[in-house]
């Protein structure tokens, strides 16, 4: 008997995806397809809440974790939290996309369909506890991503973004699958719980380590960590900007979910192998990402490189703890904390970039000069999101940084201290370019080419206002009451071990 309550979010989301497709077919006004999609996302949140709060609800039985299909699909606290993150990210991306798509001739209904299908992939991934389900879910996130990146069909940059992203994505997939096949061959299983219980004699075989290496390489492509990061800014710049927002948050979160789940649940006994690899990737990503970001003049590319650097920060606690052989759970909680806050503030930052971009028709930083004169509201939002990314209190980003630093320092050892020092230096470097953006928006004189009077008259579209409002409020609330997100992360980290091991 299948536990339908446990997979109700997936079922609702799958039906929503199909409903969006049908709505697109029968209505003339494609706006309705987006409305159906948003309604479906709300409906998906309901079973997520009832699953999380099942103990307190009358008539609800069964507590988390719920194990389905012989342990290959597990709904635990970690899964519920990450499903909510995916649903939230798609919701904001939809809001950002609506106004953007209406502004020009795009295929709309199909866009919403693909975005929601990607959400379904993320939701499935969060619960996957075997390689097969995980990879299929990952491809349902990436596949629509390849297509959406090319949505500006007439724009050669967008075409280029789609092809680059596609070639990188399928090569990463092939590496990942090669790793899985080797691991399967030596252990005879691809279920995480059984892999974690692999006897030491098999763990010592070189094929096992090699398979793990291929798996890590495959995921490094997906999270755009150094050395497989070069595609990121090109894709974000070329893709329609709302797609860039989704890729930088949703697609990246999917990669992290895969990487963290696989490392934590399938290969905990070889953390001495993957720990140093993640540690190195974290250090390289934050350093390379930040130092290249400083030189950017295009805001979208700047966000692209900044997202590479942020990926390094997300990996740092987990990589350091694993490399040092310390307790993984606290580090895991810190990484999840950072991931959740990153998702909120990066969506907001992209949102404000889109809002400004639709007015200026350009993403060059020089044209942002003196934004405060023509739109104080947008300039303040720029300040909020970019300073949050920099980690300035009381905006949410500071708590992400705090969680990351305290977790790496708690690891101790040379691994933990060294990465904390590198992260501290990088935080300073990042401060330079994030504040440069804010300074440009507030204090620089308006360039002559910009017609202030015309810009003042333009409104931000209502869906965009809603998206910016939600993310801005969250950035502020999570910064002032960081307990909310740390509780969430703690909640998600405690059960994952119990369920998986």
């Amino acid at each position, binding site marked *: 008997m299948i536990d339908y309550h446990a997979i109700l979010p997936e079922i609702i989301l799958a039906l929503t995806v199909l409903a969006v497709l049908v709505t697109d077919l029968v209505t003339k006004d494609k706006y309705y397809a987006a409305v159906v999609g948003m309604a479906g996302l709300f409906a998906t949140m309901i079973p997520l809440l009832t699953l999380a709060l099942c103990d307190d609800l009358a008539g609800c039985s069964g507590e988390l974790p719920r194990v389905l*299909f012989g342990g290959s699909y597990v709904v635990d606290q970690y899964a519920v939290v990450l499903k909510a993150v995916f649903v939230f990210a798609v919701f904001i991306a939809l809001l950002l996309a609506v106004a953007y798509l209406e502004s020009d*001739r795009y295929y709309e209904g199909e866009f919403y369909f693909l975005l929601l299908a990607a959400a379904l992939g993320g939701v499935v991934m969060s619960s996957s506890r075997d390689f097969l389900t995980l990879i299929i879910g990952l491809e349902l996130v990436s596949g629509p991503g390849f*297509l959406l990146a090319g949505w500006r069909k007439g724009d050669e940059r967008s075409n280029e973004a789609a092809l680059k992203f596609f070639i990188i994505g399928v090569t990463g997939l092939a590496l990942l699958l090669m790793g899985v096949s080797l691991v399967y061959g030596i252990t005879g299983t691809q279920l995480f719980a059984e892999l974690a219980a692999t006897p030491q004699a098999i763990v010592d075989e070189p*094929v*096992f380590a090699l398979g793990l290496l291929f798996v890590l390489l495959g995921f490094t492509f997906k999270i755009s960590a150094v050395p497989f990061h070069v595609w990121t800014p090109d894709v974000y710049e070329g893709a329609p900007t709302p797609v860039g927002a989704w890729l930088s948050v949703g697609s990246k979160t999917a990669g992290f979910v895969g990487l963290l789940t696989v490392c934590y649940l399938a290969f905990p006994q070889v953390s001495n192998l993957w720990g140093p690899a993640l540690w190195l990737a974290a250090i390289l990503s934050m350093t390379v990402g930040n130092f290249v970001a400083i030189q950017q003049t295009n805001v979208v590319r700047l966000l692209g490189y900044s997202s590479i650097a942020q990926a390094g920060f997300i990996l740092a606690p987990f990589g350091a703890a694993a490399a040092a052989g310390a307790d993984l759970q606290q580090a895991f909680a810190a990484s999840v904390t950072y991931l959740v806050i990153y998702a909120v503030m990066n969506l907001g930052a992209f949102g404000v970039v889109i809002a400004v971009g639709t007015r200026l028709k350009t993403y060059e930083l020089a044209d942002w000069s003196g934004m405060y004169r023509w739109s104080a509201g947008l300039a303040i939002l720029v300040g909020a999101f970019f300073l949050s990314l920099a980690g300035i209190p009381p905006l949410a980003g500071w708590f992400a940084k705090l969680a990351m630093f305290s977790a790496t320092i708690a690891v101790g050892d040379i691994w933990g201290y060294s990465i904390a020092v590198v992260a501290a230096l990088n935080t300073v470097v990042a401060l330079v370019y994030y504040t440069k953006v804010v300074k440009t928006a507030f204090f620089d004189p308006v360039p002559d080419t910009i017609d202030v009077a015309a810009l003042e008259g333009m409104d931000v579209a209502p869906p965009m206002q809603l998206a910016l409002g939600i993310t801005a409020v969250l950035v502020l609330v999570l910064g002032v009451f960081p307990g909310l997100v740390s509780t969430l992360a703690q909640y998600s980290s405690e059960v994952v071990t119990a369920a998986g091991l």
Partner: protein
Amino acid sequence: MTIGDWLTESANWAFLFLAIPTFVASVMVVSSRNVVRAVLYLVIALGGSAALFLMLGAEFVGWTVVLVYIGAVIILFLIGIMITRAPLTKSVDLSHPISAKAPAALLSVLLFGVVAWAVVESFGLETIPLPEEATRTGEIGLSIFTSWVIPFEVVSFVLLAALIGGIVLARKDEPAEVP
């Protein structure tokens, strides 16, 4: 076990008979100077892998490869070549120049060397028991629909998304509709 023992086994001759053309054809896919030939060599490489699957008793997988790859995917490739009007004769600009090929070749050989070393180290001369009879397709179906229902359903969404997104990107818009 010596090379002599290995060579007296008739199954190994069958293996070589299939594996060598598969390998050679795949080398031709990545090196041929004629686009159409390269894709037709892909047919041989994939057909060889399908025959190898039959040898391993994986009949359903083998025939799926024949139907899906050789029946459908290759056609897609050929359509792609036709529409992009690739030259049907030899051309030099299908690959990077030799200066870029050398590091790639080195990397590939290195990759093969590392995997080969690890595999030999781990598996040594362990034998693979060729099955008496082919895998029953019914059992595979049963396994898919008991343990792997979720990935099976999800993969249908992957295909649907690829289909619909592919149509949108590949279709030719009316001039007025071009964004």
